[in-house]
């Protein structure tokens, strides 16, 4: 279950990251439409909510909450570091 909720957290944080114009442009080289950004934000939020719900269901409110927040923070780092890694391998001027 922890792997599933962590996967939800990572995908959710990645979605929220890509909902930001600068990161979307980094990855896809096109400017995101506002509707695309909104749907990415919604998608990401739903996944994060799923991560929280999944953890709380299996480990109770308190411990589930702690695990969920921890996984979400870690997922944020994965998203940020992952994106930076990908961008570092591409040639191009720093923004």
């Amino acid at each position, binding site marked *: 279950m*922890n792997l599933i909720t962590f996967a939800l957290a990572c995908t959710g944080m990645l979605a929220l*990251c890509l909902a*930001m114009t*600068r*990161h979307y442009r980094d990855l896809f080289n096109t400017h995101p439409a506002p509707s695309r950004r909104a749907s990415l934000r919604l998608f990401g939020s739903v996944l994060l909510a799923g991560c929280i719900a999944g953890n709380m269901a299996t*480990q*109770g409110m*308190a*411990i589930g909450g*702690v*695990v969920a*927040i*921890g*996984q979400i*923070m*870690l997922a*944020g*780092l994965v*998203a*940020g*570091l992952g*994106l*930076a890694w990908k*961008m*570092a391998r591409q040639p*191009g001027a*720093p*923004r």
Partner: protein
Amino acid sequence: MKLRQAMTGLHIWGGLLPSWLLFVIIFTGTLACFDKELERWMRPALHVPASETVMGTDAISTWLGDNISAPLHAYWMHGPTDRAPYWQLGWEEDATGVRGKAAFDPANGQRLADTLGGEFFFTLHYNLHAGQLGMYIVGLAGMFMLTALVSGIIIHRRIFKDFFTLRPNANGQRAWLDAHNLFGVIGLPFHLVLAYTGVAVFVASYMPAGALVAYNGDPMAFYSEVQGGYHRNELHQPPGTPVSIDGLIEDARQHWQTSDIGWVIVEHPHDASSIVSVRRLDPSRIGSPQDALSYDAFTGELLNQQQAPSAYRAYIWLVGLHMAQFGGQIVRVLYSLLGLAGCMMLVAGNNVWLRKRTKRQSPGLTLVRALNTAVFFGLPIASLALLWGNRFIPSELTSRTTAEAWSFAGAWLLVTLFALLTHRQPTRQTRTLFAVLGLLGLGLPLVNYLTTTDGHLLATINHAPMLAAVDLVMLLTGGLCSWRAVKASSPMADKGIAGGQDVDQELAG
């Protein structure tokens, strides 16, 4: 001074000055998440899983009576658990206040060879092995950390826009600032909560005002009312015949309808007032249970069940949140990874400071560089050296813990010396030290294989996953550090001393 300018100065200096101390505290705290696993790894006698437990608390009391002649103020015992499969004993002498400890193999009742164990890192974390003074220094460092976190939040202009931003190809100062912000902001709930709860653990020592005002400064009245426990002063009468403590534990199990027993504490064993307290273990909750049972040591009569007031239970919850002994290994894995993120935040912050001032050749550059190398590399290398030492120092040596301590301290001193001698060649310095880390990390499982019969990776991978995990983490760390050493130059290493005006603007407010 304007607010942003003032807060920037506070953040930069309030962050830099305690940064090395905070690195020690956070890094050892990270290691201490798995102190029990490390301790088990450092006790090869326990690598064969015990088939049954022959030992009980009465055997330990007997051992104590046979081996320690001085009258004791108290002694405390803890039975084997999954993570710590051995009996733990600690005691404090009445007259001198000197404390001692021992560990016992549950399969045969033999005393285990002493080791610094994982507890070494835990103690280093909360008092730097410097007793009460160390505890106060750590508390002060925690206050500096909280202030740095809050001032950092105030000055971060684009805290949401920059949330995921990391540009390793940018010039050195910008890249390090991005990293500092990434690890700092994404991990902010963790850093804030752990800094605050960490300081809160010793609130009674750091803030005596409440006890002074509401209890007229009477510590016994304060502690006993706040904890809701039971205390009986010494009667200065000779003791009777103690009842079986194992029997009292059975009674406690019946009372709570659970078999998970935690610490068993015997107070004033040589006095007629002696009490045996039994505590319950419950890792399914964040706060440890506060329903300890107190028994008369000679009649076995149940004297009291602890009734803790709600604020004390809240305090215990905060302590529990910090100690991460709840919820299983996933919690400790998350805490340790986030703790490493905290360490990265410190390292990145120091590098921003260095990059900014390298252009101007400010005073203090050499000192900061030397401290960075000595601490950020020294502590991890010393920690690995301790584990290496544990495998090489023979178990028959009486002052085994001293020898292990010297492995740790000696390695750290060597790294410091190296940092001072090679301070003019920073790139080569970091590459060499990464290589040392790599060799120590990759070599440890090999050393393990050569020096133990049941403790090495091939033996533990099947029946003792937590022991195997130690070796696997060593391999991973060693591999990462070796790769870092081999890489010719990194995007973050020596890029652009020139440039970075945008960072200057950001930092100058």
